[in-house]
């Protein structure tokens, strides 16, 4: 285990940010802390980095208890959502900061900075100031700066949260590739389930300061442990106590075994998929996901009567 979190709790006044959180992160893995805002995911990451001190519990990095160690002694690299760029320094100076603080020889620093500039594809921008970079470039600089000191653990706090959708996707894929090359133990905080699923080996889903479930992307989606996991990871219809995914519903034009009558309320075309909004005869509202071909074959129209059956449903008690 590269990072071990044991029974960590943290309060801010009356607000309970973390409660009884325990977690293991394996060496060389990429873990995502996923959850809605206020779920405690950022606080947990900041506790690991030493930017917050937990009220209870302990944190170990590489087997060493670092609960009371300042951030400087933890060997972590931290990437901030809003970049935290050193505004009065050039890109090269930003990246060199950790090495200069460590008083490394000049040639070594220069060599390492060039290496990192290439890694994050910022060659030629070394002499620019952060204000002259785009958001995506600034965040890549932030990553290079964190990686410069060869951290044992790389921690990213919503690193792509302030970027537009296209740049986000690019950087996300790039981060995964980078991780596959460097194998630095990485923890990324995100509220975007797609991002977590695309990037991480292990997802830690948090809610209200507690961990709801830990598992691989597929685990969480296919075997949600709680109602919260079911509704937060992927979409879900709720009817009474039963949950069903939109793509686990099938539509037919005539009744089949186990199907129930429903009326089409609205059709939403989303490129290759079509979302059908239904009201069942008992008043329950359902959303069904079909491929475009399936929808075309059924020739669906609003106010049409169809029959809906669930191939898979879950009840949480």
């Amino acid at each position, binding site marked *: 285990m590269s990072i071990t979190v044991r029974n960590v709790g943290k309060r801010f006044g009356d607000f309970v940010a973390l409660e009884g959180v325990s977690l293991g992160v394996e060496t060389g893995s990429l873990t995502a802390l996923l959850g809605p805002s206020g779920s405690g995911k950022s606080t947990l990451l900041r506790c690991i980095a030493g930017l917050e001190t937990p009220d209870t519990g302990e944190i170990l990095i590489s087997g060493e208890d670092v609960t009371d160690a300042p951030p*400087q002694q*933890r060997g972590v690299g931290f990437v901030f959502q*809003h970049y935290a760029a050193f505004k009065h320094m050039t890109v090269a100076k930003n990246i060199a*900061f950790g090495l200069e*603080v460590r008083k490394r020889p000049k040639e070594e620093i220069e060599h390492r900075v060039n290496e990192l500039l290439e890694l994050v594809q910022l060659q030629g921008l070394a002499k620019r100031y952060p204000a002259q970079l785009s958001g995506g470039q600034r965040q890549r600089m932030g990553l290079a700066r964190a990686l410069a*000191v060869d951290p044992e653990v790389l921690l990213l706090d919503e690193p792509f949260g302030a970027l537009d959708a296209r740049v986000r996707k690019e950087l996300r894929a790039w981060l995964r590739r980078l991780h596959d090359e460097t194998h630095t133990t990485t923890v990324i905080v995100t509220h975007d389930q797609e991002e977590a699923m695309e990037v991480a080996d292990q997802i830690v889903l948090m809610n209200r300061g507690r961990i709801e479930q830990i598992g691989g992307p597929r685990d969480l989606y296919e075997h949600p442990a709680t109602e919260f996991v079911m509704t937060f990871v992927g979409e879900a219809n709720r009817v009474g106590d039963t949950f069903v995914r939109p793509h686990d519903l099938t539509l037919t034009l005539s009744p089949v075994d186990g199907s129930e009558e429903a009326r089409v309320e609205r059709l939403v075309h989303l490129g290759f998929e079509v979302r059908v909004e239904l009201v069942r005869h008992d008043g329950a509202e359902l959303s069904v996901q079909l491929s475009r071909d399936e929808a075309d074959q059924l020739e669906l129209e609003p106010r049409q009567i169809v029959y809906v059956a669930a191939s898979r449903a879950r009840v949480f008690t």
Partner: protein
Amino acid sequence: MRSRLSLRITALLYLLAVLVGPVVMVFYRALEHGLGDFWDSISNGAALHALWLTVLIALIAVPLNTVFGVALSLAIVRRKFPGKGIVNAFVDLPLALSPVVVGLALLLLYGRQGWLGPWFTDRGLQIVFALPAMVLATIFISLPFVVREVVPVLREIGDEQEQAASTLGAGSWQTFRRITLPAIRWGVAYGVVLTAARSLGEFGAVNVVSGRIQGKTETATLYIDAAYLDFDQKGAYAVAVVLALISVVILIGMSVFRPTEETA
């Protein structure tokens, strides 16, 4: 268009009447009989000593208030401690309090019958009617300026850069020197200019604690006052012009050294 023009003219007239006019008058009266005359007025021993004393006090008070002002600002913005609200309010006290009251308070504390005065006198240290009390009074009066300039800048830059520096291995002194100080340097510079201007111009508090001994504890402002009351208008104007020139030089120095690039 028209209303904007009249607004501009009103603003200009106002500035002319309350600011530029009096300053120009002082310069005019000091220099109306030529530079030689002007030089004669300030080159006497008492005037030169007064100017030197004013500069000396500023040279002590400004660095002290700069260092403590920055430290106080960091404490107010970055730390949590009991009584922070009171500390924050107390910083403004010199702005609210009349300098004369400050002077009297120092007399009460360090004077011959004061609480601490005898203790210092026993050890051969003269506080009031001497340089120490004048420096103390000036420090007190000019304390808020660095804090009031630096606090908003510190709030605005936030502490993320400092946190980033700490995760990169920088200790608190390294973080301050390499990250915080460069980020607040213009706030500090403005604070220093205001502190210097206030120190050079201080009259009320120093008037009370100095004893006004000519050639010994008479600062430039006290000299101007004494000269004016003594019907030596030329001397008063001349020293006033020198004081004003020092301020102008400081202001120009600021804008020359201030780079035009780097924003956001």
